[in-house]
């Protein structure tokens, strides 16, 4: 170990240090759903399974490959870093590895269909990524046979590791993400730091994430200067129900930072409010913009969904936008993938839509205006 290239290149490193110079660390600034601690010889990543004090937390020890495992962790909660093979069960996990240019560690996905990242699509075409089945039933035998370093899943509220017992019992670590607890776009994007800790890519993540955070704050400050606060409605109702984001939804934070007037910004619920069409209609009739029209990408389709929508002001003025610009031929929408780790681009789109004069010459990235 003393003669390792890393130790040699570090002329100033004390030769008595039994390991290479301490790796760059990363600190968590915005996210509430996880923490990263740097202890001598290993890192501890703690994932919160929800919000509040009673929320269950799961701790993982990230140990350099080949080093002794610390005491107090179950075998399935010790991960050797940098990870070399990963199965990701959500679109977000594709975005996390792609953000850190580590697409080649991704060997398995829940479904091969919903992928936008081009390097991962190429690996799929080359047969280097296998499908393990999404959601309720995983192909446990395949997962165990592949000798994986880590399975990353989304841990929904109240759902523990029990679903992944079989894999964990086979010694494969399973990490549950809970990025849904985040109430801010930057907090959501900061989950890339968990992936960076797993890949020992702290230096890269610090550089890239800081750049995104700086750009996000720059854009938010720009929007704050414009005294205009356009009124915005979101989403498509299904018959009677109109789900709109509530106060703690990261989308509400996006709208605030983009300088929008959003009537339900102060109402608390769990993620979204199930309103009646009637409750939204008074706002919709006079709103300036209608964003996120679900699966619809033409104005005609909006009218076909419900003829009453033709009376809403955004329909009349054509100010209808959807975030499906980057949908590929398979029907996978990159907004749900890279959009989660590029809040600067999403905010840029929103400001460009709501305050066009502030960002002249900019091209929309995730959003597009609905065609006729």
């Amino acid at each position, binding site marked *: 170990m003393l003669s390792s290239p890393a130790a040699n290149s570090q002329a100033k490193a004390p030769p008595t240090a039994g390991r290479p110079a301490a790796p760059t660390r990363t600190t968590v600034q915005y996210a509430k759903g996880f923490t990263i601690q740097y202890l001598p010889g290993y890192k501890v990543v703690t994932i919160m399974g929800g919000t509040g004090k009673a929320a269950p937390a799961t701790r993982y020890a990230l140990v350099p490959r080949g080093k002794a495992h610390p005491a107090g962790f179950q075998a399935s909660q010790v991960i050797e870093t940098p990870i070399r093979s990963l199965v990701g069960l959500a679109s977000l996990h594709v975005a996390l590895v792609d953000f850190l240019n580590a697409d080649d560690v991704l060997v398995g996905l829940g*479904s091969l*269909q*919903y992928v936008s990242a081009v390097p991962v699509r190429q690996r799929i075409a080359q047969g280097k990524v296998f499908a393990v089945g*999404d*959601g*309720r*039933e995983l192909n446990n035998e395949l997962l165990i046979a592949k000798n994986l370093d880590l399975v990353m899943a989304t841990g929904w509220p109240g759902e523990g590791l029990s679903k992944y017992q079989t894999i964990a019992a086979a010694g494969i670590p399973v990490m549950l993400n809970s990025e849904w607890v985040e109430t801010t776009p930057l907090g959501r994007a900061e989950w890339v730091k968990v992936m960076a800790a797993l890949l020992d890519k702290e230096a890269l993540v610090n550089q890239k994430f800081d750049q995104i955070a700086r750009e996000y704050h720059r854009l938010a400050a720009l929007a704050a200067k414009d005294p205009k606060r356009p009124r915005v409605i979101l989403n498509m*109702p*299904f*018959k*009677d*129900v109109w789900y709109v984001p509530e106060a703690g939804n990261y989308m509400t934070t996006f709208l605030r930072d983009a300088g929008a007037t959003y009537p339900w910004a102060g109402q608390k619920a769990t993620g979204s*409010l*199930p*309103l*009646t*069409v*009637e*409750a939204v*209609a*008074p706002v919709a*009739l*006079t709103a300036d913009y209608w964003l996120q029209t679900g*699966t*619809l*990408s*033409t104005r*005609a*389709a909006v009218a*076909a*969904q*419900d*003829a*009453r929508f033709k*009376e809403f002001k955004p329909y009349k003025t054509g100010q209808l936008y959807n975030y499906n610009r980057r*949908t590929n031929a*398979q*029907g996978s929408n990159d907004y749900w993938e890279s959009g989660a780790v590029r809040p600067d681009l999403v905010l840029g789109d929103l400001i460009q839509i709501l305050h066009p004069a502030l960002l002249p010459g900019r091209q929309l990235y995730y959003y597009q205006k609905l065609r006729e």
Partner: protein
Amino acid sequence: MSSAAASGAGRTVVWLVALAVAVALCLVLDIALGSVRIPVGAVVKILLGQQSEPAAWVFIVDKIRLPKALTAVLVGSGLAVSGVQMQTLFRNPLASPSVLGISAGAGLGVAVLLLAGGSAASAYVIRQLGLGGSWALVGAATAGAALVMALVLGLSARVRDNVVMLIVGMMVASISVSIVSLWQYFSAPEQIQEYLLWTFGSLGGVVGAQLVVLAAVVAVGLLLAFASAKPLNALLLGENYARSLGLAVGRSRTLVIASTSLLAGSITAFCGPIGFIGLAVPHLVRGLLGTSNHRILLPAAALAGAALMLLCDCLTQLPGSQAALPVSVVTSLLGAPVVLWVVLRKRGVGRTL
């Protein structure tokens, strides 16, 4: 029944008038209530076509509440009438419009559209072609319901035994439900979300031309049902007795099944599955009117069904909230105690079946 015939006629008229008044009251109540508070005076003004401020109130009353209330009337009366027909045809107090598997067939049609065989790519293609929209949903549900209806009608011509018919209907429903479950299993969560919202049932969103189509189909279904009153009375006494009365049992059964298929199929297509009205209202009216004469039962069920459906729609509105409960949850919550109350209060009701 014959002993009470003289006073019974008067009582029946009183009940029918009372039910009609209840429908009118519930209709007004349903239009007056909503998540946005609008004074009753303003509601009446708007309904009478006068101008009112603010403009949003006019939109809410004319474009949201009125179509929803009218849909509730159509759904309530259609489901209740077909419930009476099914309970008599199958001589089973647990029969409802869904026993023939028509509603499940409509669900299957909707699943084909929303879950598109479990393939998101094909769903995406369908939407890119502009085949989405509310008419597509109605069309898919109608196709599914019509398919099952054709199957059931075809079988009913061959199968003489009503119990076998009942089993056939339930098995067809069971197969449809399993196919849908299988698709859900292989579908993306956001597609399942839309399908789940559909299964909650909803009276909203049926506006303009859709409301006209629904009203026309329900009207035809109700006319066929009222035409079946006499054969239904004869069937109450048993098929053999009905046959000895000179009734063409096969033809009247076809009439009843066609009527229920139209009613249950169209209502499920436009509003999704709405449970319990078709099961509870027949018991309610039999208990209230104390008769099993279908010439009275069918119109009474139509009125009571409409009133109960309107009442359920009022109750979906949580006080002081901008949210609403799914209507089929309310019909079940309200319907089950109604059935219990009627059955326990008048235990004799089972004997009239």
